[in-house]
């Protein structure tokens, strides 16, 4: 049975795995974890470890001058893997620009993800293949898209009964952060989605820092408390607990899918590294705070649980490390081998239909560039 909105405690974060790896019972959410067996648990750890290794490789590539920019996610792996693994392939995901872990759960290739950051594509992957939208750099601009996409799903699913909705209904997961929670478009999106009962799950990763500005500047109350103002259930979850995130996101998707409208999830987590590779956290935050969050690392927590329950052994971690290094090497190789498309290609992609100015400027550009080729040959 689906718990009513009021039964979902907004203030205390839902926790299933404690930081020291103890499994807690939960009267509502245990029902959403019934299928989680040892294979799935090992899978979650593997997802998180691969994501972290990818993040590390991409950071290194940027440091070596091979990427324009990188947006590290270290520390947020559980929030991303837990929520991503709760979705169905037919659900549509609107990420921010940091959802590399969610991308993994949607089978978006890590290599493809670097095309944007390598400066050879404005998007990088085909959003239609995995129902995982392109990254959006303008904070919160993807949230009204999510509301509209959800409204479109509602129109498609008009007249479906509960059974059909539960079995085949689609939903949207819209990611954002504590920083973008203050944007006007976040507000407008939530109003639209709630007014039209759109199946949208708003998944906020509160990583405590919007570049250099701490959470206290964005909100005087936990963000989850805003949910009631829009008329939707709000759930606060320990974002470093992959099982809790999986369970609450499954609950939220079930709620949204069933035609009851949107859900707001606030996942408490911590950006262990910098905002981007252009950032320097030593200028604005205390090492004491970082030290306090370090033991809450989501990978440590799951590793402790897995080891204490004999679900994994040393060989598992050794093999995983090898696989991760292999993946990183492939990603690096792929990234370096991406061909740079000619600027002429960009002309073709501005409009879907023929456009005289584009044709005129493209013709001029090609002629101009061809002039250099001639002089080169004659020299």
């Amino acid at each position: 049975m689906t718990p009513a909105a009021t039964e979902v405690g907004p203030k205390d974060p839902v926790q299933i795995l404690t930081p020291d790896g103890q499994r807690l019972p939960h009267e509502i959410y245990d029902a959403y974890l019934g299928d989680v067996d040892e294979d799935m648990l090992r899978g979650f750890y593997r997802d998180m470890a691969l994501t972290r290794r990818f993040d590390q490789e991409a950071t290194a590539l940027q440091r070596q001058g091979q990427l324009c920019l990188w947006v590290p996610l270290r520390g947020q792996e559980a929030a991303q893997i837990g929520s991503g693994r709760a979705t169905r392939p037919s659900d549509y995901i609107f990420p921010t620009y940091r959802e590399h872990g969610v991308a993994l759960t949607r089978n978006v290739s890590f290599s493809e993800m670097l095309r944007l950051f390598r400066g050879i594509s404005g998007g990088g992957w085909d959003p239609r293949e995995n129902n995982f939208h392109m990254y959006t750099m303008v904070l919160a601009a993807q949230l009204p898209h999510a509301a509209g996409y959800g409204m479109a799903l509602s129109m498609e699913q008009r007249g479906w009964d509960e059974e059909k909705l539960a079995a085949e209904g689609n939903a949207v997961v819209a990611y954002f952060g504590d920083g973008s929670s203050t944007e006007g478009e976040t507000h407008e999106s939530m109003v639209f989605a709630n007014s039209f009962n759109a199946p949208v799950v708003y998944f906020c990763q509160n990583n405590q820092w919007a570049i250099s500005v701490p959470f206290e500047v964005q909100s005087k109350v936990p963000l989850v408390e805003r949910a009631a103002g829009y008329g939707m259930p709000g759930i606060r979850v320990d974002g470093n607990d992959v099982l809790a995130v999986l369970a609450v996101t499954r609950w939220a998707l079930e709620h949204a899918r069933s035609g009851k409208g949107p859900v707001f999830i606030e996942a408490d987590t911590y950006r262990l590294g910098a905002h981007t590779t252009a950032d320097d956290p030593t200028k604005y935050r205390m090492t004491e705070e970082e030290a306090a969050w370090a033991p809450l690392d989501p990978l440590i927590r799951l590793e402790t649980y897995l080891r204490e329950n004999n679900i994994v052994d040393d060989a598992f971690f050794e093999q995983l490390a090898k696989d991760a290094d292999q993946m990183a090497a492939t990603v690096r190789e792929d990234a370096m081998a991406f061909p740079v498309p000619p600027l002429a290609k960009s002309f073709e992609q501005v409009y879907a239909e023929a456009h005289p100015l584009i044709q005129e400027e493209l013709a001029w550009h090609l002629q101009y560039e061809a002039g250099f080729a001639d002089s080169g040959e004659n020299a």
Partner: protein
Amino acid sequence: MSTMTLAKAITSGLDKVLESNDKALLMGEDIGKLGGVYRVTDGLQDKYGAHRVIDSPLGEAGIVGSAVGMALRGFCPLVEIQFDGFVFPAYSQITTQLAKMHARSEGRLTVPVVIRIPYGGGIGSIEHHSESPEALFAHTAGLRIITPSNANDAYWMIQQAAACQDPVIYFEPKRRYWLKGEVDTETPALDAFKAQVVRSGDDATIVAYGPLVPVALAAAEAAREEGRSIEVIDLRSLSPIDFDTITESVQKTGRLIVTHEAPTFGGLGGEIAARISERAFLSLEAPVLRVGGFHMPYPISKVESQYLPDIDKLLEALDRSFAY
């Protein structure tokens, strides 16, 4: 063939769109039960239901942003912004999201959203209700911008906008909403992205669009009494601009006046003047002249008649052109 006002021609065009494309829908503030503040969508919610003619919450970024999301799911939303001066909360969605989605996705995604905006002054209104912000959008690649000046074009161009796979801003000349005209509902109008010579002449060309086309025609008629033969071009599409039609005209007449209500500085008249001086320099007998708004916020309505281009200002510009 039937006679209707420009506003009703848009209503009929929207009706056709909703009837022929079940993925098309309308959304905006007060467009449902009320039929829009200008009644352009009057009766359509009754006919097609509240799920296809949607009264949205108040929020322009939400309207355009959610339309983008709907388009990503395969719908064809036509949204209404209530007034020109209220489009700016949606400016980021239009310029950073809608205009760029196709390019960012390397051509994979299309977002066929139509944004209807009543624009222009001359209606005796208060601030933010009389503006002409078209140049701000024309500067953004990825958008198409059209504006009808008569009922027949209004009827067809809204349907052409809806059929276009690119995002289209459809600027509606609000002071001409009540202008009656013949609409040929059988024969489609000219391509929405082409200009049209609406009066032939030999001595000078006036390029106008939207609300100023009737003004340009009236000025041409007045000039005829002075013995001057003036060609008038209704631009119709502001992005792309049909420079071929203007060039051909200027090669014939040798003189060009461009007029719009929007401020002259940074307006489309400047772009047209530059292009025509590149394309038809040797045909020009005089510099291309512009008749537009002043560099000020749209003025208080009691003095707007002194701000707006009118017949006399166009005749004065013609005099200046012929003085060369």
